[in-house]
């Protein structure tokens, strides 16, 4: 009975969903994320799905997962070991049980543990009965049976009824985590009800019934001894929504175009895990965002450069192998000196690598992956919500300095989600001062000179086609100040120096790096991009434990923040955890001649806080 389930308060709970890749794991995960966020918790999530769209059902290879952490305080990652695992079938259980915290809850669908399904994944006996899960609190629920009972009066085939098990589980979790059921009921109506984009009235009704059956199951069984309550997190006041990094970047593109007074343009080509960005952006036609899905990655960036040359605010979006294909054209934007933002959602490499898994191994590609001396600024987003700001800032710098800028996100933050404090357009920085097209009426008596520069930023004067009397030629050959082709050795030397200086000088105006912790000590942990959350969480805990550890996060990875060298000099040791074999470490060693220690992980999975903590303790000799 419900009275048996004691309400315990929890500071944070890590939940993982696993099931067949066609089973809607991402959907249910996102729903719980939204539910927790709406209830005032801070949340961070991480989807984890296979690269095959529908790998054979019931196999380990076909398992799709979604992990999330909800808390009553600021949550930086999707959490370490899950407190609760929802495994929808034997394959999912086999895949994920080992990750669960000792004593953690495993909720599973006992109806799916058929002889055949268990044999398929190599279970010789039923793990729900043979004691092999003794270390966990297993809740074996006959979900199909219960859902079919709940939907007995509905005229639907059984497979369609069985699909409602996700909302049944949502009901159980809603009860277990003491969340407001109305939020889920509203969500079902929004998604399937009469006012939905594609109304599916029967499905709305079935899911509502299944959800309520789940709630009642929690209430009335004696299966659960405890349920959990969580207070609201202390969060900055404002309007929030839950958002993935890819969606945040897509919105930033539309926003930046409007704030610059230019038509936003994306030239792109589908590639995992960046595609969702293009999907969402393609819906923004009403907001004036032009998207061209081109014939390949090269055409994607080339069309963007063309649009930039015509005076649009242009973006191209991609992932690692796509960035490799865009290499020559990125160099073109650089030598033409036109604004361009390249959003690269990094994935496991090299080559095709691990398309659906996260990694940070494109840093050196972004840095050096072009012929010639060809530096461009690199900004790294540090959370799903931060993809908005990172993309917006990249657009500003691209315009101001007439340069391509790389935004590095990754599969983890691109597809993961967290609450985003929604800005208003009025609050965002006006980018029009950085556009500053050269027009004859602003320069009476002057002739337009295409590579004449602003003495401070070194940005060139930029006149776009259609500007009266400013017709001129620019190209990818080395040129002199007038834009005329020049093979003069000293001219090439000078132009190369200027192009590099333009990027180097940017460092002086970038925000200074902020230290988390004391400004000197034994160990400095440097994070960038997707490692921000795990490092921040780890350093906070180490500091709370009284350790001499501080953290610094790099927003701009190139050029480095102006005070970084000074910060580094005040620590005995420097640690850089990265999802690669030490790429930022290499740059830091080269730039600051410091013995950076690298903590590498290339397992398609982001860092957990404990991994950083363990490494720091090892370095401290503890």
């Amino acid at each position, binding site marked *: 009975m419900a009275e048996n389930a004691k309400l315990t308060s929890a500071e944070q709970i890590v939940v993982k969903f696993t099931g067949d890749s066609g089973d809607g794991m991402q959907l249910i995960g996102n729903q719980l994320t*939204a539910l927790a966020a709406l209830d005032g918790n801070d949340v961070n999530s991480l989807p984890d799905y296979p690269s095959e769209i529908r790998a054979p059902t019931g196999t380990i290879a076909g398992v799709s997962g979604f992990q999330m952490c909800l808390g009553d305080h600021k949550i930086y990652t999707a959490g370490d070991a899950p407190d609760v695992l929802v495994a929808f079938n034997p394959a999912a259980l086999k895949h994920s049980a080992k990750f669960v915290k000792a004593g953690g809850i495993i909720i599973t669908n006992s109806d799916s543990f058929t002889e055949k399904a268990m044999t398929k994944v190599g279970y010789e006996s039923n793990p729900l009965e043979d004691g092999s899960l003794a270390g966990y609190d297993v809740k074996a629920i006959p979900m199909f049976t219960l859902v079919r009972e709940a939907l007995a009066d509905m005229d639907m085939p059984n497979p369609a009824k069985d699909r409602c098990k996700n909302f049944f589980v949502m009901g159980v979790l809603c009860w277990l985590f003491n969340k407001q059921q109305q939020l889920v009921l509203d969500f079902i109506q929004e998604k399937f009800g009469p006012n939905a984009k594609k109304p599916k009235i029967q499905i709305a009704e079935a899911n509502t019934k299944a959800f309520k059956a789940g709630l009642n199951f929690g209430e009335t069984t004696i299966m659960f001894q405890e349920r959990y309550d969580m207070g609201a997190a202390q969060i900055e006041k404002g309007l929030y*929504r839950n958002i993935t990094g890819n969606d945040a970047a897509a919105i930033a593109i539309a926003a930046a175009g409007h704030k610059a007074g230019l038509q936003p343009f994306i030239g792109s080509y589908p590639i995992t895990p960046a595609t969702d960005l293009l999907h969402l952006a393609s819906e923004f036609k009403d907001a004036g965002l032009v998207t061209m899905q*081109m014939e390949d990655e090269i*055409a994607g960036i080339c069309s963007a450069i*063309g649009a*930039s040359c015509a005076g649009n605010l242009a973006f191209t979006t991609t992932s690692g192998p796509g960035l490799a294909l865009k290499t020559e054209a990125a160099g073109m934007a650089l030598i033409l000196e036109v604004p361009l933002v390249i959003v690269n959602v990094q994935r496991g490499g090299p080559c095709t690598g691990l398309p659906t898994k996260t990694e940070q191994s494109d840093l050196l590609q972004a840095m050096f992956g072009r012929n010639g001396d060809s530096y461009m600024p690199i900004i790294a987003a540090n959370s799903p919500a931060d993809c908005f700001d990172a993309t917006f800032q990249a657009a500003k710098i691209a315009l101001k300095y007439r340069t391509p800028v790389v935004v590095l996100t990754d599969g983890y933050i691109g597809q993961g989600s967290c609450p985003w404090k929604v800005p208003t357009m009025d609050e965002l920085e006006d980018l029009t001062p950085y556009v500053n097209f050269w027009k004859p009426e602003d320069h009476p008596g002057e002739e337009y000179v295409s590579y004449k520069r602003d003495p401070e930023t070194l940005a060139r004067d930029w006149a776009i086609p259609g500007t009266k009397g400013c017709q001129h030629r620019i190209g*990818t050959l080395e040129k002199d100040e007038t834009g*005329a082709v020049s093979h003069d050795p000293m001219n090439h030397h000078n132009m190369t120096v200027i192009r590099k200086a333009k990027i180097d000088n940017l460092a002086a105006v970038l925000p200074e790096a902020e230290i988390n912790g004391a400004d000197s000590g034994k160990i400095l942990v440097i994070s960038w991009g997707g490692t921000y959350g795990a490092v921040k969480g780890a350093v906070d805990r180490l500091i709370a434990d009284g350790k001499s550890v501080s953290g610094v996060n790099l927003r701009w990875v190139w050029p480095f923040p102006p005070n970084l060298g000074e910060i580094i000099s005040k620590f005995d040791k420097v640690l850089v955890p990265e999802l690669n074999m030490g790429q930022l470490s290499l740059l830091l060693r080269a730039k600051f001649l410091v013995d950076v220690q690298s903590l590498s992980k290339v397992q398609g999975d982001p860092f957990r806080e404990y991994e950083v903590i363990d490494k720091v303790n090892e370095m401290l000799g503890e």
Partner: protein
Amino acid sequence: MADTQLTKKYFASNAEVKWCPGCGDYAIMNAVRQGMVAAGKPRDEVAIVSGIGCSSRFPYYMETYGFHTIHGRAAAIASGVKVGNPKLDVWVISGDGDSTAIGGNHFIHAVRRNINLNYVLINNKIYGLTKGQYSPCSEMGQISKTSPYGVIDYPMAPLKVAMGLGATFIARGLDAKMKLSEEICIRGAKHKGFSMMEIYANCVIYNDGAHKQLVDKAEGDNHCIVLRNGEKMIFGNEEQFCLVQDGFAIKAAKVADVAEADILVHDETNAEVGTLLAGMRPDNGLPIALGIIYAIEDKKTYDDMVYEQLAAVKAKRGRSVDDIMREGHTWTV
């Protein structure tokens, strides 16, 4: 003011032209300038995009906006320029290597989209700038630096490819027939849609006589036919040959041997016949088709559809960026 008169000179820049003496590109540049005059846009509303190759130096010689870009990608870059600002008159100048080898993918998709570009493919059947290697348009057996024993690649027919992609305008010119090249560039400039203009050119250094069969004073006109809409397909230096139907194909015949009514009349809106005409070759006993082979005006352009769709979605959904940012579940803290 004299310099706002749309003349060929108005479109000429001060840059010294650096093509080899005798290069076919000179005549083609002249024709393109005529095309720009006909299009009627002031030069600051004209953009020329080129890739890499001898012909791709073209923008430097034109007093317009010009972008000399990278090898093979001009069609993709120009597509961005045109969609970025559809008011511009956008030209692409490319060569056979640039368009049909490295840039083949961009070329075919630009044709397929029917984006409103004027695309000039200068075909000299050789890589000139890199000093003489065979291209996808080189002939079987052609000797070049990379085919010292003769080319063993079958050649590509860019116009036939274009017809397969649903082209709306295909035309072929010849550097030696200057007047015809001008006519083609003028029609191409006025055509709304992708104007595919292949112009045969000689390379005096690396493939001299690239089209000698067609420019031969005595015999040349026996190997090519200049098509004129509504006129009978008659050719030859003494107008002694004609084209007639042969089942589903076309064959050449002597005018004297056929009934006048059997001589085909050129209809530039007939796609099936256009495809056959585009693929005619002397080694199949047929003349090379010159002039405007196919031209239709009733197919929407990609760039128009981009803006029609923007307007339609704006009318229907009408969200501002603020609206978009606030979509989905939101909550206030």
